[in-house]
């Protein structure tokens, strides 16, 4: 496949995806179960109206991108028009950011693991490990700071939310619950 075609397909992909999801949801909206009253719009009307508009916009964009000679000619909002062509004063040179997808995926996985584990391992332990993992994934290298930020931060957040804001954070189960309860006692949290 030629490079321009790949570029065009890459631009088309999000609209095709959204259009497909929209169509599926439209089908789902058609199955909404309710007792119809004559002359009154049902609960399916509003979502179907919005989905219809969503599909129409996607279809327009797909056709436009498929047929357009210049791929950068989409209609822009007013802010885009104002900022377009404004010269900013030259500043210190900063190289463009390089994407690091592995770092992102690791960060997302750590966050998902946190949510999956916090009910079992309790707030304190999970948070301390998560903050440490986040800092390491983020490329931070000072070990003492990582240790202080993770353990100290978890204790501080636990104190603020359990003692001051009265949120009952997950204490965990089994030995993890014992640890959390011990810490709660030490911090004077009931």
């Amino acid at each position, binding site marked *: 496949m030629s490079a321009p075609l790949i570029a065009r397909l890459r631009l088309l992909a999000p609209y095709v995806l959204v259009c497909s999801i929209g169509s599926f949801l439209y089908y789902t909206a058609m199955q909404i179960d309710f007792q119809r009253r004559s002359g009154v719009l049902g609960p399916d009307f509003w979502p179907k109206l919005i989905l219809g508009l969503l599909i129409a916009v996607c279809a327009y964009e797909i056709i436009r991108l498929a047929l357009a000679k210049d791929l950068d000619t989409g209609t822009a909002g007013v802010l885009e028009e104002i900022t377009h062509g404004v010269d900013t004063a030259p500043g210190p040179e900063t190289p463009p950011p390089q994407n690091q997808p592995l770092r992102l995926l690791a960060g997302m996985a750590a966050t998902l693991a946190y*949510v999956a584990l916090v009910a079992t391992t309790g707030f304190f332990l999970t948070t301390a490990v998560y903050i440490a993992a986040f800092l390491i994934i983020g*490329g931070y290298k000072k070990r003492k700071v990582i240790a202080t930020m993770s353990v100290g931060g978890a204790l501080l957040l636990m104190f603020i939310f359990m003692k001051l804001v009265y*949120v009952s954070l997950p204490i965990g189960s089994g030995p993890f619950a014992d640890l959390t309860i011990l810490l709660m006692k030490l911090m004077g949290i009931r």
Partner: protein
Amino acid sequence: MENTLTLLMHGFIQVMQPVNLMFLTIGIVLGLLVAVLPGLTLVMGVVLALPFTYSMDVIPAIILLTAMYVSGTYAGAWTSILFRVPGEPIDVPLLWDGYPMARKGEAAQALGWTLIAAFFGGMVAATTMVLLAQPVAKIALTFSSPEYFAIIFFGLASVVSLGSGKLANALISLFAGILLATVGVDDTYGAHRFTFGVPILADGIDYLVVMVGAYGLGEVFMRMEQGFRSPQLEKVGDIRTRLPSLAEALAMKATFIRGGLAGIFIGIVPGAGATVASFLSYGIEAQYGKRRHQMGSGIPEGIVAPQTAATASVGGALIPLVTMGIPGSGATAIILGAFLLHGLQPGPQVFQTSSHIIYALFASVFVGIIVMCLIGYFATKFMVKVLDLPEVIVSAYVVMCCLLGAFAARNSLTDVWLMVIFGIIGYLFERFGFPITPMVLGVILGPLAETNFMTTMISFSNDWTVFFTRPVASPIMCVAIITLIWPLFRHWRQQQRRTK
């Protein structure tokens, strides 16, 4: 008028109570810090502060959030001017003239103009807010569902057409948000919509969860992908603020007035916020200002116009919130959330039932602006030091606040799961050029739009022309449609010119 002044005085007495004054100062300082840090936006800051207000009384909670909102429009100017690092999108226009002024050795003057502009914009808008609130609330009492729908439709249209990026993407983002708001059990029929058999979805998706995920976590993921690169800061000498003389300020009165009016007007329009106000005001100055041809070369007008408008937009945005219960921006949506958490529904009736809370909110804007300017004058040097903090550490705590914020609302881990999902969606939106704000506004205003649309259809026998025949709804609908069509027309005209 006398009644308004009496109520406002009572509001000042409330704000001056030590506890409230303490939370106001904390809010101002947090707002300033959030605005200085490039990874944190003003809306994100207000979102993250919300869970800390759960156990507070309603007045200190609202004072804290409003103070953050006010000061969040100001401090980003410091880093724009001094380091060419805009704290958030609002501050981008400030670097076009602010940074060149700093390069010419006029950083102190530039900071002085910023302070005066924020003070003037904030005070004018706060006064307008106090004067307009009761009359608007009285008018709003006469509104029926077609008028409410027209106002919301206008808000949704403006968030799409006034934003940056492609119009089609903004529309898709908006429709996605409105659809998210339909998830759950329908109020009228009790029908399940898009719940897919998941019990928690029957309660619907809380807009706060969407906001925390999309604005907070999504932004952190975005910065994580870029490796948390802190900006390269230039060495700046002594950081001082030199206020302009009265004569210098008076010579620029037209710029102040234009900026203030633009800010108030944009603030009132639901859907447009401080960023739009700041950009639009700069655009107006570049078109109509006395020294329009020198804009961008480092002149004070380029600072005064956007800063006045940005701070003025706060007062404007609070008007539809308190008088009609319609939040016009992300930050006002959070303030609405704080109201609702304390069992208070803003709207025309609130002036009868809880006027002391509303006037405490109004008074806090006045006091907040004064405190903000005092801190701005004396502490800029110390506040910008926060930029030395490694971004990854700040981000780790932002994520923790997001997770805790989502959990604390209903003590539910399912909300945390949803928040993480919206964080990933927020990241994907930003990655592929779909703006987040329309989606968030769609989730917030979607239920109001649906309720008022359906009520109108039931009341007027499915006659949709009623939106175009009633004296108040009709012009608003027409303006909304023009707002939507205008970018398309401009685009078509540009293409015509290109082909010629």
